[in-house]
């Protein structure tokens, strides 16, 4: 047993309390101004309903995209050696530190109608991403996928390779081994990575409004609706914010065992 620490220094406790207040006060501010009596009306408003539906669709689709593309990428990063691997890894991480607005501009210049790739998508296939729900999904995947890749890569790295070797000696093919042995073993990483990715995608604002625009039912996700509503309808904006706050709390609580071992 460790001996009990001495009384912590007053200054440290004071600063820590200040930090807690800093996190707590914005929440209190939101809750105390919440139009509780009109909340139902606010939340059944068509703008809010559309934004909520669209946010769910886009964030889930972005997470699915992260799964489909991010899992192979995580595997390549964790299991293979190739020149420039560190560079690729840094590139994958970049959207995590890049301001989302910059991401939005970059996406526009790459996938926009006059963009690097976008002009061919438009000319050859008639595919247009800006101002479409697909654009919103792409913007969210761009900023959120790194979370999935990083978490899953770490999961793969910490895996004991002997399980796979055992499966291989028993005659399992590579894909069978991956599906029956590796995937179940890294399931916790997949879940945590997906949850983080989903939460980040749900909150995406900057890249979405720049790349996908802002249209009710098409590209106006919750954060965009909050931003626009705030200009004329503080109550509506607060109601929407409360929904996102509730979602965040649910994510946090459901993942608490992974992140906050008691």
């Amino acid at each position: 047993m460790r001996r009990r620490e001495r009384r912590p220094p007053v200054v440290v406790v004071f600063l820590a309390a200040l930090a807690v207040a800093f996190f707590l006060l914005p929440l209190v501010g939101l809750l105390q101004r919440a139009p509780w009596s009109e909340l139902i009306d606010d939340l059944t408003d068509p703008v809010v309903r559309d934004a909520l539906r669209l946010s769910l669709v886009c964030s889930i689709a972005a997470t699915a995209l992260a799964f489909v593309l991010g899992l192979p990428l995580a595997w390549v990063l964790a299991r293979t050696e190739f020149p420039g691997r560190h560079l690729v890894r840094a590139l994958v991480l970049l959207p995590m530190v890049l301001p989302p607005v910059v991401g939005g501009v970059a996406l526009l210049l790459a996938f926009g109608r006059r963009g690097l790739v976008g002009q061919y998508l438009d000319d050859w296939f008639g595919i247009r991403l800006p101002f479409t729900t697909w654009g919103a999904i792409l913007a969210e995947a761009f900023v959120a996928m790194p979370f999935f890749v990083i978490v899953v890569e770490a999961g793969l790295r910490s895996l004991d390779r002997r399980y796979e070797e055992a499966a291989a000696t028993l005659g399992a093919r590579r894909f069978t081994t991956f599906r029956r042995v590796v995937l179940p073993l890294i399931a916790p990483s997949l879940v945590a990575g997906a949850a983080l990715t989903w939460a980040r995608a749900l909150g995406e604002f900057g890249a979405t409004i720049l790349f996908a625009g802002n249209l009710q039912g098409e590209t106006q996700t919750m954060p965009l609706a909050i931003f626009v509503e705030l200009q004329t309808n503080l109550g509506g904006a607060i109601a929407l914010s409360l929904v996102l706050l509730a979602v965040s709390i649910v994510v946090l609580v459901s993942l608490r065992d992974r992140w906050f071992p008691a």
Partner: protein
Amino acid sequence: MKRALVALAALAVLIATVQPASAQQKPSGELTVFAAASLTESFDAMAKQFQKKYPDVDVKFSYDASSNLATQINQGAPADVFASADVDNLQKTIDAGTVTPPPVAFAKNRLEIAVEKGNPKKIKSLADLKKSGLLVVLCADQVPCGKYAAESLAKAGVTVSPASKEENAKATLSKVSIGEADASIVYVTDVKAAKGATSGVKIPDKVNVIASYPIGVVKASQNATGAKAWVKFVRSKEGQAILRKFGFLPP
């Protein structure tokens, strides 16, 4: 917590009492102007002239949709002056007691259709905006330019389905200048300020809307002298000449 608040309040009082004494004669110090996005270029130019006249003043701007700025000011944003692209949003701050009445009109503006350089889609009127396959972006309904565009379209009896409703006039125009959208409805001054990045298609007077721009001093301003000087300058011959140069009409 309480003691810290008291200390902060004391500090605020101290600053408030010290500053006016030195600022009494000549405007000086930092001046924060909240202005409609459509005023970006003209106010930037105006700040240069203003600072020539009052070298001790440091003018800073926050340009955005007037509706957004009004919300920010009503929530206590540290602005000194508020210049709105419509009467309603300035009135909103006056009603909330954050801006001192009366609002002072300083300019008028008109709408125009902004199209890609050279008008490749050959748009001639508001009615052309409902052509199928045409990507039209408008300002959001909550924003003055969106409200004006809706009025103008209603006058012309045209219903368009926009691809996006952008957060302010500049964002709306940029979607056209970057080539993502074929057309948008913004202010005449926005097209002019874009300096050839987009072309403008005139909207006839009969279906156009005149936007009236009022300005006011924020009640909680820490630099009331500077704020008043700015309002006076905007209304002066010099300030009006700059606004004219950027395509604004007299108030």
